[in-house]
């Protein structure tokens, strides 16, 4: 697991990288929750540009981030998804719960 983040004007951007599966999902969930609690941003952006693979474990990562953001009444956004993770989100219906800004094809 590897992630980088930056905060600007109340917007926290967290860039995820590599493959998201059950093996690393717990670490992602903990790290994202920690950052949201520390910075209490108005908007949290999960940047999927560098995510090369994701299974349903990624859905749990997003649901947990969504929970953390609704606790502080903030908004969650997903950006730059490649077609494989996008397909997993569509199959789960989570694309109806979270705003997805941009889809890379």
């Amino acid at each position, binding site marked *: 697991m590897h992630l980088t983040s930056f905060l600007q004007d109340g917007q926290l951007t967290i860039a995820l990288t590599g*493959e998201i*599966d*059950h*093996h690393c*999902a*717990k670490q992602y*969930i903990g790290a994202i929750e920690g950052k949201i609690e520390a910075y209490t941003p108005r908007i949290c952006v999960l940047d999927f540009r560098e995510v090369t*693979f994701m*299974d*349903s*474990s990624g*859905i*749990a990562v997003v*649901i*947990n981030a969504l929970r953390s953001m609704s606790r502080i009444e903030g908004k969650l956004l997903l950006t730059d998804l490649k*077609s*494989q993770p996008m*397909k*997993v989100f569509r*199959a*789960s*219906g989570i694309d109806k719960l979270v705003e997805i800004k941009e889809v890379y094809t």
Partner: protein
Amino acid sequence: MKFDNYMILEFPSRSCNESFARSAVACFAAQMDPTLEELGDIRTAVSEAVTNCIVHAYPNDYGMITLRCRILKDNVLDIVIKDKGIGIDNLEQARRPMFTTGGSDRSGMGFTIMESFMTAFEVTSAPGKGTTIHMRRKLQRRK
């Protein structure tokens, strides 16, 4: 049944083997000349099935997972993923979207994704004996 080629893998239910299993199947399937989307679907379905073995079949210990892939005629990839774990009591409930007995790090979408990403999907389970996932994906022949 007639088949062209096959492979069998056996590995313990360690979570680091999730990426190994899906990559191994993707490498095997490469000879069928799949599209990127087909390969993504197959990797996702294998990842879900193997994760289920690791999380649910062997919750307290490591056990063995057997993975068999065959290439059937008409460019069909046939995958069987088998464990000798605790089995599933209520299959109907387990297959329901968003249902999970796992923690908050699980989404309950594994079976739904396997079903929607593969062309055929079947799960058989005996409590105390184990679970077998049998799935197939027909690949388009590229012109």
